[in-house]
């Protein structure tokens, strides 16, 4: 029975600045990208034909999909372990676990990529240590390849994977777990039969979030891929900045946006999108 009130025009005016800024300086540039993809070099779907004909374009797409799927799977596994530990931790330990997730989340992606380069390059700390210990004779190729990209991307994505899973695990009534053990289930059975099914919505939400973030990821793959393994975002940048092929670049950008929106649309039927983005802040 609480009154909805009668919002006057004044309240709409409050929304106006943000709305105009987003339409004029966000939506318009993006719509322009979509428009260029069918108008340059000439009007038509010529750019999109490349999706079917150009093996270079197809290779970039497949590389991106492969890396994204591997990244998502690994980020979910590691993120699940952390979220699980946080959910079951004592209140004091919980604070430290959460810190271990939040601090990397907010530290510059550049700093993190730089740290990985320092560790993984030929004369990096990992290779040097292993060689001094006599474990290897030649430096291992740990970076400037797909392996390096995956290491860096998973590192970036784990915190994003943790947050939605954590919020869904927190909704699980701890008495259920105690009750299941009381009824004679082993720890493994409690996890498989009770905890895992109840936390599944969070896992799906995290999976969607990590996958769509990975698809358009630029900085980490560009630094750790060393220009040899190209993902979609870096390929787009290459088309625009170096090859001045606006048609191809914007075509791939459009494909990227469509792929992300389709993924969201498909999964919004299974899982509440608010669960994905509500926990993101």
């Amino acid at each position, binding site marked *: 029975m609480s009154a909805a009130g009668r919002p006057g025009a004044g309240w709409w005016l*409050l929304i106006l600045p943000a709305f105009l*800024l987003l339409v004029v300086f966000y939506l318009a540039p993006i719509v322009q990208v979509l428009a260029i993809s069918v108008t340059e070099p000439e009007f038509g779907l010529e750019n999109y034909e490349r999706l079917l004909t150009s093996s270079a374009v197809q290779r970039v797409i497949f590389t991106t999909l492969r890396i994204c799927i591997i990244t998502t799977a690994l980020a979910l596994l590691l993120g699940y372990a952390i979220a699980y*530990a946080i959910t079951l931790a004592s209140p004091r330990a919980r604070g430290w676990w959460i810190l271990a997730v939040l601090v990397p989340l907010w530290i510059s992606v550049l700093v993190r990529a730089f740290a990985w380069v320092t560790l993984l390059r030929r004369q990096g700390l990992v290779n040097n240590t292993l060689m001094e210990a006599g474990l290897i004779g030649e430096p291992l190729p740990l970076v400037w390849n797909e392996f390096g990209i995956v290491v860096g991307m998973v590192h970036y994505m784990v915190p994003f994977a943790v947050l939605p899973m954590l919020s869904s695990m927190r909704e699980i009534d701890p008495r259920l777990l105690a009750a299941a053990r009381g009824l004679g289930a082993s720890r493994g059975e409690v996890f498989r039969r009770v905890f895992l099914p109840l936390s599944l919505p969070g896992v799906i939400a995290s999976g969607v979030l990590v996958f769509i973030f990975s698809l358009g990821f630029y900085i980490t793959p560009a630094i750790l891929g060393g220009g040899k393994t190209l993902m979609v975002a870096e390929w787009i940048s290459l088309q625009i900045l170096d090859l001045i092929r606006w048609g191809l670049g914007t075509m791939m950008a459009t494909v990227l946006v469509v792929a992300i929106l389709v993924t969201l649309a498909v999964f919004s039927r299974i899982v509440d999108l608010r669960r994905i983005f509500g926990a993101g802040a």
Partner: protein
Amino acid sequence: MDGAYRPGPFGRGLAWATALYLVLPILIVVPVALTDQRYLSLPEDGLSLRHFETVLASPEWLGSIWQSFTIAVAATMLSVTAGTLCAIGCWRISRRATEFVRVLMLLPLIIPSIVYAIGLYRYFGPLGLLDRFLGVVLAHGVTGIPYVVITVSTALAAFDPRLEQAARGMGASLSQTLRWVILPRIAPGIFSGAIFAFIHSWDELVMVLFIASRDVFTLPRRIWDGINENLDPAMAAVAVLLILFTLLLLMADRALRRRSEG
């Protein structure tokens, strides 16, 4: 959960390994920054602050830090003003009517920056905003709005709508209600949003790669060039400074939240 149910050894081991994987690589830059060598390595004969000195004496690094800072401050003001007003408006007007605005607010979080960056590259050309302070502020400010909307909306969700009714019922106008009742109550949420919007701009690279080139050369842009061209310990010193700065901001955020809860 008083000892009723704990993870097994595998789960616990994996969680610890993951936590180390998340934190250790970041910490590795600290000893590297303190190295006494001239190349990227661990300290050999002792610790040295020379690379910090190099950075703090370099007009290029200092210029970029200053530029990034002023851009982030201006962008944050833009995000906070527009985002706070928008969150309050959406909160007060019914859900359904503002659904479109809410979806619009999510777009900058969903759509990859690379797509927006190439769009801006073309869009800003005719407007004369390429390689301009204002251009970068607009780009960062607009994409920072969602962070503010989310944190302020969270604060508003905990705000008792009867306080607003009480104020209006006692004769307060919209602007009086905003200034004296709503804003003081949601101030912690606004500060939180401001911190996130600031970090967003301060760290942002992809847009800057496209819409700035010489006159605007932000800190992330300089680090990017450094990583791609010459990997030296000064980079590690910059990384350490950045980490410290981010930690400071996060601690400020936590302290504010704790105070508003207490």
